[in-house]
């Protein structure tokens, strides 16, 4: 009972942080799934005077260019081939502009598409830019907003959690100060002297991870708890549970170990 009471003040902030992180992961997952669903629902076609050096366009409006595909102009020539002489066809081949389609790594918003268009038009080699897209803007922007809000919330809770966890570790140091002093007088290192505190922290982290894993497992099987049923028709909500659990596990232990080593380092500097 005393042990549980001891770890409670460590467990609660850590668990709050992990659950916020889980929610962020779920929302992020929804956004990613939605992105992949709408990823080809836009098109950027450019027309150039001379062949394009594809490597010169790596990024547009802050979005990495995934691929630039050359569009064959053979069809145009084939359709008018019968009414032209061979010389004229050759001349036409030389005079015809080059057509390319640009694919981006992520789905752009309408304003980003407009920015891309303006950026491309600044290139003197580019004669024309045509941009087409299906309007997913409202849902997409809302999801991005939700994603950002959940990340900011996670970030703030993490900061507070680290402060509370550090305070709790300091409190444990105070409670164990006699024991730590005795062990150090016998030649023990700071790490050895504080091993019981380290055990508290690791056990709390493990417990927080287990509770959070149960939460994520429940939510992944009952998505309607977080997301309305109608959303499932629009977005395919799937999560890779093992990958997400690994992320939560790493975060739980990294935060605990990072905080405890921070406090240990401070203790070592003050006492050595």
């Amino acid at each position, binding site marked *: 009972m005393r042990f549980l009471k001891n770890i409670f003040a460590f467990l609660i902030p850590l668990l709050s942080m992990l659950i916020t992180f889980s929610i962020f992961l779920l929302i992020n997952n929804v956004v990613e799934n939605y992105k992949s669903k709408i990823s080809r629902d836009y098109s950027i076609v450019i027309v150039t005077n001379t062949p394009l050096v594809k490597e010169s366009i790596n990024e547009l409006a802050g979005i990495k260019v995934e691929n630039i595909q050359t569009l064959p102009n053979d069809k145009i020539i084939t359709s008018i081939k019968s009414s032209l002489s061979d010389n004229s066809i050759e001349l036409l081949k030389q005079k015809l502009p080059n057509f390319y389609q640009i694919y981006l790594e992520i789905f752009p918003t309408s304003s980003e598409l407009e920015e891309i268009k303006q950026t491309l038009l600044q290139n003197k080699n580019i004669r024309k830019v045509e941009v087409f897209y299906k309007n997913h803007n409202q849902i997409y922007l809302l999801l991005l907003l939700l994603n950002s809000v959940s990340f900011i919330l996670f970030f703030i809770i993490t900061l507070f959690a680290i402060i509370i966890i550090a305070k709790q570790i300091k409190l444990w140091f105070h409670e164990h100060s006699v024991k730590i002093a005795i062990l150090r*007088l016998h030649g023990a290192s700071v790490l050895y002297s504080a091993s019981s505190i380290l055990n508290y922290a690791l056990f709390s982290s493990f417990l927080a991870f287990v509770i959070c894993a149960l939460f994520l497992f429940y939510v992944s099987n009952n998505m309607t708890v977080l997301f309305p049923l109608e959303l499932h028709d629009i977005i395919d909500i799937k999560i890779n549970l093992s990958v997400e659990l690994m992320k939560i596990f790493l975060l739980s232990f990294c935060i605990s170990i990072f905080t405890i080593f921070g406090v240990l380092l401070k203790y070592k500097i003050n006492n*050595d």
Partner: protein
Amino acid sequence: MIEAKNIYLSYDDNKYIIKKGNFTIKPKEFIFIGGNSGSGKSTLLKSFYGDIPLKHGSLKIENQEVFGIKGKKLRVLRKDIGIIFQDYKLINEYTIEENIMIPLKINGYSHEVSRDQANKLLAHVRLTHRAGYYPNELSGGEQQRVAVARALAHNPKIIIADEPTGNLDDYSAEVVWNLLKGANEQLGITIVVVTHRVPKNLGIKFRQLSIEDGIIYEVS
């Protein structure tokens, strides 16, 4: 071997508790350090295990310079010393057996070896029947016997004791003196004891130092 040359000790820079301390303690010696309350006896003892830094001078313990010692070197030095305190300094959440195992485990012995050694020492201090007890379930005399057993556990070259019988009745004090005497005679451990009252009829050759106004004198 403990060798002090011109050592100065203070908690702040304004007043030296020990000034120009010069003395040598040879291996296997039994030394008493006396002096009035506040004369700096305990401070001198603390400097032996690096709990108080030296301001000036040189203090060598088993050829290890203590001046400016810290980190790993300090830990190694402390592993060579057994310490006994007036207030025992046992860890209350550990059993008696576990308390004796502390220096052994810190010195890297396995749990089994540490437990065997602890049980031998418990038999030596006649507390085998208390092995599973916690310190606060024992009398002061018994706790100090545990502290002596802990100081002996890792077979140190030096045992330093700060008023080891200060809180004990005459009978318990005699038991503690006999244990320290045995450690010196049978195991050849150098014993340095800070005390107000040097026991009568200790039955062993010893040397006495005294501190007055921060100066260390050889009494006998």
